């Protein structure tokens, strides 16, 4: 039970840090490439957490993102819950697959996350997406492996103590 609780703490800590990373202001050019930090962390935990409460977490942190960004309440929530559901469904296979296949799968799911949010923007106030909206996926390619490795190390460290 004890390591499990520590693991929970790590889950919350990583999600909070991902929220902070989204909030930090960068120059406009860097901001264009800003990856979806929270979505990536949610993806990791849906892949590796063994209890099924990740979807609730995704919902809660999605709402937090909406509050912080001043958007429509539930927009990020919807995108993140969908992401974590799709990830959970194929988690067993994905844990076994190779590095590149996992990366491709994560990219597809994050693309889906972007699409959901752009669609909601379009429905709610007629926002028309531009090609710049998909630039974050480029930086995801570089950041996901490191994030995955880092969280893996911390996770296994906590489990084996």
């Amino acid at each position, binding site marked *: 039970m004890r390591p499990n609780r520590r693991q929970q703490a790590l889950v919350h800590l990583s999600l909070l840090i991902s929220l902070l990373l989204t909030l930090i202001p960068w120059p406009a050019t860097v901001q264009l490439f800003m990856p979806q930090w929270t979505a990536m962390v949610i993806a990791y935990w849906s892949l590796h957490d063994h209890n099924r409460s990740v979807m609730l977490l995704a919902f809660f942190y999605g709402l937090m993102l909406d509050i912080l960004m001043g958007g429509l309440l539930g927009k990020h929530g919807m995108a993140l*819950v969908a992401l974590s559901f799709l990830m959970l469904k194929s988690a067993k296979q994905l844990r076994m697959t190779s590095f590149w296949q996992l990366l491709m799968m994560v990219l597809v799911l994050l693309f889906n996350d972007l699409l959901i949010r752009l669609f909601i923007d379009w429905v709610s106030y007629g926002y028309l997406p531009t090609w710049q909206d998909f630039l974050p996926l480029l930086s995801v390619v570089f950041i996901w492996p490191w994030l995955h490795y880092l969280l893996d190390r911390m996770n296994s460290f906590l489990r084996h103590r």
Partner: protein
Amino acid sequence: MDALSQQQKLTQSPLFRFILLQFICLSLMMADKNSQLTQPIRQGLSWVAMPLIKVVDWPQKIYQTVEIAITRQAKLIDENNALKQELLDIQLKAQRNTTLAAENQRLRDMLNTARELPMNTSVAFVTDIAQTQKRQHVVINQGQADGVYLGQPVLSLAGVVGQVDVLADHYAHVIVITDPAHIIPAEILRTGLRTLAYGHGDGLQLKEVPISADIQAGDVLITSGFGNRFPRGLTIATLADVSVSAERDFQVANASPGVALNQLTEVFLVWPEEQSP
């Protein structure tokens, strides 16, 4: 395995949860879009969000403090002298202004027109947090607890900034006048022509000026006070260029706002009527 012990109960299945949560999200979005029902949720969660904003804002505050501490004294003295000079100029102008205001009031009394309502203002600081939203928002450090209300006009020294769009307890998101979803009722100072100024990304655009109307580049746009959101007579922007629309039915003018909207540090909140905090 825990999958067996769950006995395949419906409520435990991920699909059920997924559909339930998506449904909640959908209803939240619809409630948020169409009414104020979700405001309590927003305020509740804003208590959790506030520390996060503070944490991001904090290093920048430290940076500013350090910057002041390091700045050389000679430079500070220069700055101080310049500011004193500026203050003198402004006080002189203000003195002329009081006589003008009194005269204006007398004339208005003679004409029996409505008095200009005094404005209550308060200063708010812009919190520098990133916005991944596709909207042009700035976040200010005052919220409902300080008497801010939805749709409240927000100004800066150089002109109109925007209006309060999303409200939480201790901070608020202000939509900027250049956001493509924002429209502000405007008036051209030189001719008194009233029209609407649409947000257009970097600047503003007047789309509905009649062909016969007299407008030219360099004209100053002020708020017309229509719609009862913004008080009358605040500077919005100056017209940069005027052309005829593609269908040749209207004149189209682009305007650039007087405020450097991405370099705001402090803004003024205005309570136009006696709605003081």
